[in-house]
């Protein structure tokens, strides 16, 4: 039996839309928007001025502290403006706006090539930070931070997340099929940085061919054969979540509120290691990423290598958006965020752009019934929470009780509960609000969420 975890759900996969589309390069948009805060941590600091000419790959903003990464110019062009621009949350976020030169050959600035084997772990961490590398799995957490675990918590096992459990998304799948060598190179670099003893690549069993490609690549690589193995996982959402993956692969649980390093593992997305394997030896920065564009709202779905900062508007037009399109979603359908403003750019954390039609998307204005305690959510929650009770508490504004008695803060918002709920209760949305309210420490008085 394939490795797995308990609970979880099986939404329709819908990967066939883009699975067989190989990675294609995207053209440059008329302007690119580089948010200085597109990773977790402190925003980068701009080091260019308005009107300045920049070359593709050139550093345009530098890291501001350890938990921060630099930005590189995704195109050769001119800095139009440095100003706040809209981000996902509808907030204004400081950004650099670049206008690519239409006539430029768009060669990437040649970096200082390095031989990874010759670097010390500290140097690798430094180099990864210089690349502007963040986790491409969605959270956009600066990779070099993850590569420097606390001294007292050494990482033995590197887990490479090739699960790609979100429906629709196929970018990691294409990366595995097309970039096996880069991946192995990246794994070696990361293992060295971590001092890890072994690597497990976890891949869901709906992508057996990708697993085979990796296995083949490993079998011809003398060093990899010894410490890298590929494990096939049951196809189940959210198999790709860090917590589920460690449970499935090494049968250990990341402690509540703790880090993977607490149990001696580190989880990294497959595309992350692939980019490291490719860019680090060349001394180049992260300026583009593979993004799945899918959904019935576009006529040319596929997996595209898109320069950072490309505005959604441009992405959509280029992917052949049709008039049935209604929802534009950053990420997969389970955890992705709706975009309200099409000026918003592709960021490092965007693994997919879903353009869904009204029929494809969960029905609009669904009738919400009271919780009928069917227990579906309880049996879906991969973290063994009780979403039913949490939902009822949320309706009664018992936020403190949710956190204290029902582990609200362990919820990683996977959405499984909401997906299955026959009463159409927007559970995760309740939980997000509750978490936010608690985070902000608001001492709110009675106010019914239900309205």
């Amino acid at each position, binding site marked *: 039996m394939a490795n797995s975890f308990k609970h979880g759900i099986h*939404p329709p996969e819908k990967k066939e839309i883009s699975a067989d589309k190989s990675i294609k390069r995207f053209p440059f948009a008329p302007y690119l928007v580089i948010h200085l805060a597109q990773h977790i941590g402190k925003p980068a600091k701009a080091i260019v001025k308005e009107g300045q000419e920049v070359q593709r790959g050139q550093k345009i903003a530098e890291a501001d502290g350890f938990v921060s990464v630099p930005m590189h110019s995704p195109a050769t062009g001119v800095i139009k403006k440095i100003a706040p621009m809209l981000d996902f949350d509808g907030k204004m976020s400081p950004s650099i706006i670049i206008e690519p030169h239409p006539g430029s050959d768009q060669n990437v600035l040649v970096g200082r090539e390095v031989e990874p084997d010759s670097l010390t772990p500290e140097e690798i961490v430094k180099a990864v930070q210089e690349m502007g590398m963040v986790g491409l799995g969605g959270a956009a957490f600066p990779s070099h931070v993850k590569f420097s675990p606390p001294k007292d918590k050494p990482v033995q096992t590197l887990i490479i997340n090739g699960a790609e459990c979100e429906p629709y998304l196929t970018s990691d799948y294409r990366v595995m099929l097309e970039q096996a060598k880069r991946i192995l190179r990246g794994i070696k670099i990361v293992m060295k940085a971590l001092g890890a003893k072994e690597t497990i690549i976890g891949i869901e069993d709906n992508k057996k061919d990708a697993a085979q490609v990796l296995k083949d690549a490993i079998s011809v690589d003398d060093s990899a054969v010894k410490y890298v193995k590929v494990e096939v996982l049951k196809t189940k959402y959210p198999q790709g979540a860090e917590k589920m993956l460690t449970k499935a692969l090494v049968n250990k649980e990341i*402690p509540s509120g703790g880090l993977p390093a607490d149990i001696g593992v580190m989880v990294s997305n497959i595309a992350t290691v692939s980019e490291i394997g490719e860019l680090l030896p060349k001394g180049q920065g992260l300026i583009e990423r593979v993004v799945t564009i899918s959904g019935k709202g576009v006529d040319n779905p596929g997996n595209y290598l898109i320069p950072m900062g490309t505005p959604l*508007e441009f992405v959509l037009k280029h992917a052949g958006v049709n008039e049935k399109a209604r929802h534009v979603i950053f990420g997969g359908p389970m*955890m992705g965020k709706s975009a309200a403003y099409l000026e918003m750019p592709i960021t490092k954390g965007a693994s997919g752009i879903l353009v869904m039609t009204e029929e494809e998307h969960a029905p609009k204005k669904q009738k919400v019934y009271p919780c009928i305690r069917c227990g579906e959510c309880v049996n879906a929650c991969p973290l063994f929470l009780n979403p039913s009770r949490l939902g009822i508490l949320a309706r009664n504004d018992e936020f403190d009780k949710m956190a204290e008695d029902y582990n609200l803060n*362990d919820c990683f918002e996977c959405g499984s509960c909401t997906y299955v709920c026959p009463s159409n209760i927007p559970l995760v949305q309740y939980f997000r609000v509750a978490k936010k309210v608690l985070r902000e420490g608001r001492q709110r008085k009675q106010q019914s969420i239900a309205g």
Partner: protein
Amino acid sequence: MDSKFLKIDISSSPHVKRPVDVKKIMRNVVFALLPVSAFAVYAFGISALTLIVTTTFFSVVTEYVIDLIEKKESTVGDYSAVITGLLLGLTLPPGFPIWMAALGGIVSIALGKYLFGGLGFNVYNPALVGRGFLQAAFPVSISTWHPSFQADRFTSFFSSNLAFPFAKPTVDSVSGATPLAAFKFEQKSTEVANLIFGQTDGSLGETGGLLILLCGMYLAVRKMLDWRIPAGIFAAVILLSVIFNLINPEKYPSAMFMLFSGGLMIGAVFMATDMVTSPVTSLGTWLYAIMIGILIYVIRVWGGLPEGVMFAILLGNSLAPIFNILTKPRVYGTKKAGAK
């Protein structure tokens, strides 16, 4: 920056949804109950038809009226009141006075459901609250049985059906005895095959155990019913029956007899499984089911009354919140169950 070429909708994730909702589940349960009701009509004739229609009608109307009074959006459309009405009807004896059945329908919804805030909040199974009320209010009528498959069942009512509202029903001379009462009070056993195929006396919906089982399986396969509950109840009853039957077959009936007699089948398949009133955790569900099974056995075998399914399920409902608390699963990454 013109980006207004798309009409955009935004919503919170997840953006996909399992295509099942309460209404669909409830509708399927109604579908599953229709064959059972049809068999009841086949076995008991127009009395059965009238009773089932009466309870359903009064349940639905009560729900409608209370929504009106409470100035809430009508919830009749979710079919749950129909289920309550159907199930209440199916638990009544064939000769039950129609006016009492109507009262039962009203009590089920008003006392059993709306008192607690309506769908999803009732802690007791509404249909059984209705039946419990009727059983305690009119114990004679509800334990007066008429034989099934009477020749004139499609043309005439049992005379007690037609009692004038609030008046005493006439006593029929032809009253029969349920298999359980026959066993308990007269030490008469009933052929198990007759039980399975509904050739016995009893409440409208409790004869014909096999049909109920099949309808339940349909729901279980469609994942609209928690299979653990009937499984747990059956397991507990079978285990106890087998043990005691081995000790003294005279006094303790066989497992098959226990399973297919009385309201066990319809109770285990359709009533204990009411999701609103059963626990949500899977371990809790098992405990709940096994406890109901044990109580059914204990009440039937050692208690004063011949049948205990209704009481057992109501007692199970009482304890459901406590089972939920006791069986709170250990949250991922925490040490103890529910630890912070």
